[in-house]
């Protein structure tokens, strides 16, 4: 008898909750579609208002960084990308770092082509670091592997293995020094 009395209020409650969930989901979907339209616009190379990008989800900033880089506005792209470099799951973080590596590597190549080796070297180093971090997060990215190799070739072959280097006589103390993260984040 008790369950019978409960049935009606429960049904009304289910109806109300279901309707609320549906409305909330619809509002959510509408917002997501609007943001996706912005992302598509940025990817296709058209600029959008900055306001929604600042208030929006991190994917919008990723798309804006992509747009800025394609327009060769490297400094702005770096500023935008570095804000969201640690957002998302591991696969997304790996892709963000790969894009960061591309950002550095493209500038390094541009400098190298004008024989400005002093400017190219630190940029290539930063690119290598970004690619290595990306591959540590997800080792199946062929694009990151390919570009890392390009970045390593760009530098003079300092990384070539000498016969002593192959020995396992890497001392704990010297290893400690090489593991200290010495690269500053961002442009020098």
């Amino acid at each position, binding site marked *: 008898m008790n369950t019978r009395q409960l049935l009606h209020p429960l049904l009304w409650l289910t*109806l109300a909750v279901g309707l609320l969930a*549906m*409305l909330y*989901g619809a509002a959510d979907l509408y917002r997501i579609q609007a943001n996706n339209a912005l*992302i598509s616009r940025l*990817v296709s190379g058209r600029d959008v208002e900055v306001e929604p990008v600042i208030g929006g989800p991190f994917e919008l900033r990723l798309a804006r960084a992509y747009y800025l880089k394609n327009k060769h506005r490297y400094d702005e792209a770096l500023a935008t990308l570095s804000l969201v470099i640690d957002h998302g799951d591991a696969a997304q973080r790996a892709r963000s770092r790969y894009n960061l590596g591309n950002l550095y590597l493209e500038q390094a190549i541009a400098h190298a082509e004008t024989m400005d080796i002093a400017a190219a070297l630190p940029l290539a180093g930063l690119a290598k670091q970004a690619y290595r971090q990306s591959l540590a997060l997800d080792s199946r990215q062929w694009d990151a592997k390919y570009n890392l*190799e*390009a970045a390593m070739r760009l530098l003079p072959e300092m990384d070539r293995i000498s016969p002593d*280097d192959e020995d*396992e006589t890497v001392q704990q103390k010297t290893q400690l020094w090489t593991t200290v993260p010495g690269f500053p984040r961002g442009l020098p």
Partner: protein
Amino acid sequence: MKRLLILTPLLLLGCSGAPEEALIRFEVETPRPFGYVIGDEIREKILIETRSGITLNTASLPAEGPLNRWLNLNRVEVEQDGQRYRIDLRYQVFYAPLTVRTLTLPGFTLQFGSGGSAFNKEIPPWRFTMSPLRDLAVKSAEGGASIRPDSLPPQLDTRQAMILITAGSGAAAAAAGALTFLYGYFPALRRRTLFKQALKRLSRIPEKDMAEALRTVHRALNALNRQPLYQRQLAGFYEAHPEYRRLDSQLNWFFNYSNHYFFSRNVSATALDRQKLTALCQACRQIERGSR
């Protein structure tokens, strides 16, 4: 007995000097030794089973982090199951060879302890070859350097919103349907099962309680007619529900019998009457269902 006591330390000494006897099983599993490119992960597995009382000193495992300029140790996992150890090492190589080139994963020394004494076991270095991914020249023949393009920024995921909408609308529709039924907005549904319900009730009424059985059938007929149905109104009833006309004789018998039962004296119900009543109800049910 005394001799045994003297022998025991000697035996223990023998054990600590000979790790082969202290370790029941010692295997190093390595993957294929060729075809690696920059950024690949290499997994090395070490399976060890020790005699009881002997433990692996996990501090002797290499530490996670960079081992040298081109080699990272990303993860070290040790699973212990009693006297069995399973060590999972994940290296990652960041070497850009110009041609196919042989490299070496460094070996290390595992330490085991047994009571006061300890012994070592070498993990041998492992050699493998790496291959380059691209041509020697950084720049392509056309002049521009060729690198792979950026990964496209992801679109936002709509799955969660879609699930919310689907679940919400499903729950709301189910609740709305149930409420509509309970508030009687589906009269057709109810009215199509009048005799089904009557039959169900009839089967529950005891054989002797003829009065209740008759009332049940009366109630079903009244509900179908939307007002009390008497024998003299049967003609009108048939006009509204012509499919019941073929039960005319049975229905007339029912009303006559009911009149006698309720308004005459000394009428006793027999099992045969009850059977006829049930047969009438079943016939009505068949018509109601549309199968007759």
